[in-house]
């Protein structure tokens, strides 16, 4: 039972580390361009959300706090993506 | 002096907070033309000198008056010290730290204003000198933030230990106080950078930290005034309820 309580935690760790690896692999490919950038940000969003829900344990927290944190995440990520999308040379490929 | 008279002075001191807030924003910010934006450190000396000439009257009056206004920090720090001493008891080190930090904040802000008055003193002089004086003023106010941080952290720590049923500051405000005190730290970068958000006119060295400072100051003033009011009420019309609020929880 102890192990099954910690298993979700292990799973979360695998997911965030795996997501990091994917983000790096995309970079290693030497591709640039808006799609890769957007995917990088999406991966960061997913990792951050897992940290909030599982490491910070907000998945089972009162909705107010879960909404506040997820709301922060959504707002900051949206702002970043929006500014990224409207940045000058964002659409060039190397 | 009897308790009632003492509380009257404490109340006056606490109200110096809101007065400071309004006067500081008006004279230092608006009249001195630091709002909506301070002069950029990236401005050329000639441009900067021209700015002084253009707003000469406002800059002079604004900063001369704000130097006097800044001393309202003294009674405010004094009453906060008294309130902290009540919480701490025999060896009120936190109250002393807060007192010293608050006292030192006065010259940090007012002396920087002296430099800007000096810069405006002879508008016809070599612009480089005016620029050097302007730089000095900004670097004083922005790099000497740590004194104010000590004041704020000490106040927060003392208030966290307030065992009254109705404490001086609510617990969340203590943590926000610590946050606001630390929000000044990026302003150290103003000593190196001339452009970007960490320059003295940037969002992270000016707008955000000054906002945090004044927001904390406003919130603290509210609760300080309320605390003095509670004590006055306990004396004027003692009741089980009013003494219960002052009693230890």
């Amino acid at each position, binding site marked *: 039972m102890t192990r099954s309580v910690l298993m979700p*935690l292990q799973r979360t760790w695998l997911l965030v580390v795996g997501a990091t690896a994917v983000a790096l692999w995309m*970079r290693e490919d030497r591709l640039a361009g808006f799609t890769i950038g957007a995917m990088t940000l999406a991966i960061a969003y997913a990792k951050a959300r897992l940290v909030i829900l599982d490491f910070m344990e*907000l998945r089972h927290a009162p909705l107010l706090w879960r909404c506040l944190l997820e709301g922060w995440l959504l707002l900051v990520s949206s702002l970043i993506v929006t500014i990224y999308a409207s940045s000058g040379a964002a659409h060039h490929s190397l | 002096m009897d308790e009632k008279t003492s509380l009257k002075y404490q109340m006056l001191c606490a109200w110096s907070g809101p007065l400071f807030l309004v006067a500081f924003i008006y004279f230092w910010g608006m009249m001195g033309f630091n709002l909506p934006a301070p002069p950029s450190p990236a401005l050329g000396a000639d441009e900067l000198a021209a700015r002084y000439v253009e707003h000469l009257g406002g800059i002079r009056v604004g900063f001369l008056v704000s130097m006097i206004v800044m001393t309202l920090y003294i009674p405010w720090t004094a009453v906060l010290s008294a309130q902290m001493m009540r919480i701490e008891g025999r060896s009120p080190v936190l109250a002393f730290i807060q007192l010293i930090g608050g006292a030192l904040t006065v010259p940090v802000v007012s002396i920087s204003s002296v430099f800007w008055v000096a810069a405006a003193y002879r508008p016809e002089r070599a612009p480089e000198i005016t620029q050097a004086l302007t730089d000095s003023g900004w670097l004083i106010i922005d790099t000497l933030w740590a004194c104010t941080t000590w004041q704020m952290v000490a106040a927060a720590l003392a208030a966290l230990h307030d065992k009254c049923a109705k404490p001086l500051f609510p617990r969340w405000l203590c943590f*926000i106080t610590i*946050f606001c005190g630390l929000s000044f730290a990026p302003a150290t970068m103003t000593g190196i950078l001339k452009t970007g958000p*960490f320059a003295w006119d940037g969002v992270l060295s000016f707008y955000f930290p000054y906002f945090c400072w004044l927001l904390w100051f406003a919130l603290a003033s509210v609760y300080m005034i309320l605390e003095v009011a509670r004590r006055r009420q306990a004396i004027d019309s003692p009741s089980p309820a009013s003494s219960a609020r002052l009693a230890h929880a």
Partner: protein
Amino acid sequence: MPGQYPIGAARTGTLPDADALPLSAAARSSASPRRLPGDRDVWIFIYAELCAFGLFFVAYMVYRSDRVDLFNASQLGLDRSLGALNTILLLTSSWAVAAAPRAARLGRIVAVPRYLAFGIALGLAFMVVKYFEYRAKLHAGITISTDMFYMFYFCLTGIHLMHVIAGTIILIVIWLNARARLYHTGNTTGLEAGASYWHMVDLLWIFLFALLYLLR
């Protein structure tokens, strides 16, 4: 939840296997009402920090939007492997620090300081990596005044590093408490509060890594 386990067992750390109990903490906590771990007022502090850093991230993106080519070019000078290593270190550290309160709630008192110690070690490793990273930059003549990108790099990672140091100090404090067996099923607030600050530090690095090292 308090009262679920015999007090004596929790204090000595000798707990029967959770399976043997009629209703384990895990099963009970998943059915129990929602609960904010740690301390609400510390969460307010954490939220203020998140808002401040959110401002930093947006400022970075705004200043970048005017100088995309400069930022892309200078970004190539960053050591992505060290950045990635730091990311893995913090994520793993966060995993360990997240495991500690769970262990405490299950009454596995002995495990709590071990998880925290592991988390602290990885936090220290992060600092060491950062030291080498900064040193390499400075040796290459790259400083905070080199250009706008490197200004953000040094300032943002520097401010974050201050938070890593502060977070590590907090972890050490709760680790010392855990070694003194302070945290158990009925008392995990301080542990969780300290842990939540550390997870914030991890969360912020996820963004910094993406923005500074990866985003082009």
